[in-house]
């Protein structure tokens, strides 16, 4: 029963999943690839965004408003974390900061999971109820199309900011040589805050688009973080375009592997790809 139409539909779903992965990967890459903090709590922020949106929906808000409010809320939370916890992390330098970043965000994610599951223990979804859209004989999932549109728009805005503005370009200086950045007049702390908050917004959006087609619980956070790590590795840790390419590639591979071979193989392919990339060409990555 494998028709061209089905293949197209699977491919679109794959791209949608890929866009989700790309957003997560970009979220990690922004903060780590350009910086030093490997944000292990990133998945938790994705989940929180979905929960915020669900709460807003429950208050009778429309979906779009709920999503916007959720993104603002999760970003504000990111800002709070940045001003408090991360400020403490940034007191140390070099390798120690990298490790402290890993450990602090690990503690943070345990805290968030523990606290949030008390109030929101369920699985949450933000169904779009758009059904399927016939595209030339293929029954393409409507939610996938929306995910692709929203995700791509976000990525474009992000790129415009980083590539076209002086501030966007200056973000790289901070992460390459903090003192050097200070010496040319960049305020590293501000750049860090900006980047962290941006990454949280991107991760929040990732969670939300994921919840369009599936559902999310507090426990999904870890899974998301792992996805984010894999994507950012395959894409080359420091490269945003790499993360996007890797996200799309893995999304499509994953969806087709699911369709044809199913089961664990898809997962193992995903992790396997990451391992192969890591072993084969780390100079691209480090």
């Amino acid at each position, binding site marked *: 029963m494998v028709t061209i139409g089905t293949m197209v539909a699977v491919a679109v779903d794959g791209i949608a999943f890929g866009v989700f992965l790309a957003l997560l990967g970009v979220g990690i890459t922004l903060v780590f690839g350009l910086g030093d903090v490997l944000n292990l709590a990133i998945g938790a922020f994705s989940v929180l965004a979905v929960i915020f949106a669900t709460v807003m929906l429950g208050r009778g808000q429309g979906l779009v408003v709920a999503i916007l409010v959720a993104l603002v809320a999760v970003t504000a939370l990111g800002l709070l974390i940045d001003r408090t916890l991360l400020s403490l992390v940034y007191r140390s330098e070099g390798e120690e900061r990298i490790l402290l970043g890993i450990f602090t965000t690990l503690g943070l994610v345990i805290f968030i999971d523990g606290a949030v599951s008390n109030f929101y223990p369920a699985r949450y979804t933000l169904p779009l109820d758009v059904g399927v859209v016939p595209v030339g004989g293929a029954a393409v999932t409507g939610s996938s199309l929306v995910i692709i549109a929203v995700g791509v728009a976000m990525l474009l805005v992000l790129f415009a900011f980083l590539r076209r503005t002086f501030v966007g370009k200056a973000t790289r200086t901070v992460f390459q040589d903090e003192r050097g950045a200070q010496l040319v007049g960049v305020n590293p702390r501000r750049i860090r805050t900006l980047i962290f908050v941006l990454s949280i917004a991107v991760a929040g959006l990732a969670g939300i688009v994921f919840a369009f087609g599936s559902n999310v619980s507090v426990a999904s956070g870890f899974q998301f973080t792992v996805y984010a790590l894999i994507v950012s590795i395959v894409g080359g840790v420091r490269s945003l375009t790499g993360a996007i390419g890797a996200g799309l590639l893995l999304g499509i591979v994953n969806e087709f592997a699911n369709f044809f071979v199913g089961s*664990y193989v898809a997962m193992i392919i995903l992790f396997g790809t990451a391992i192969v990339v890591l072993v084969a060409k780390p100079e691209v990555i480090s």
Partner: protein
Amino acid sequence: SEGGNGGGNGGSSGPITVAALEPLSGPFSAWAGVHRAGLQFAVDEVNADGGVLDRELELDVTDTGSDPAEADSAFRRSVEQNGAIVSTGAVSSDVGLRVAQTAAELEVPHFLHMSGTDDVITQDTQYVFRVGLLPASTYIRAQATAFSDAGYSSLGAIVGDYAWGRSAESAIEEYFDADVNVQVAPLGADDFKSYIRQMPDDLEMLIASGHPPGSATIANQVYELGYTPDVVSGASTPPQLLSGVLSDDALEGYVHVHQSDPYTDQFVDAAEGFGEENDAQFNTHTAYGYMTGKMLAAAIEEAGEADPAALAEATRNIQFETLSPEPMQYSQYGELDQAVVTYSRILQEAPSYYSDGEYSYEELFRSDPVPAREPGQ
């Protein structure tokens, strides 16, 4: 015996302690919350009625975080330090398996909340009793009856690639006459579209109960992809979780499975009392906690002493009328015997017994009493 280790006899005065090993954090926290509340409500009722053997019942609650090792040590602590004579609360299979071992070693009974994996109960098991969840095969058997009763002919199933899903899969082969399109998905999957796309277009019933963590997503996605099955059989998920996570289409077809019977007067009575007391809705899963509390009180009373072994023995012989369609009774290994499996739709309206409620039930079908599964070695 060594295993009793001096703890767990509960002494002869003061309260009788019940260990509640609840996964209050982690993936099953929603299960734990309602179970604990129901259990507490039952204990309060028992105590209000003069307690058991003229002693109060007391809960010793621990958060296991759904971690087997934590559950094990909490179990021991409760028994040895706090003198618990019985325990309850396991939800995930891992925890159930580990706790079953501890129960055997300590010779202190455990009443499973969920943890429906076959392997929890073997022919050697003496201290583990199922309450809220039957083995997968039992559910499939009940669904086979419903399926043929409805005269369906097109059927699909998605099962998880782990013990529960695989025993559902073999039960499907065993109990269904029709040709079933069975897809095996990993346990951690959260997107089922590619499995669903392999289903026949005229799908009438989809068994999602072989993949408990994914069943709500499966229901959502099957309708999203334009299929229109009459029934999607779900897992034993606490209903308060369902109304939020199912899309409108999916709510129509999704059926919630339960051992407790929300359509009886007894249930309504308990639910009213509970609602007044706790300002929360008493549901099919709250009922498992409640049933456990009431049943173990009765069994202790029956045993005539607050002793774990005697309690286990009494439970094996009990016929306990409670919120289930048929009285609770057990095979010698602790499998539920003659249990009735009920499938209900979730309606998004308040029930009669709790006006602030957000959901109620509509019965779709129920099985005949199912004989206890004969455990393997």
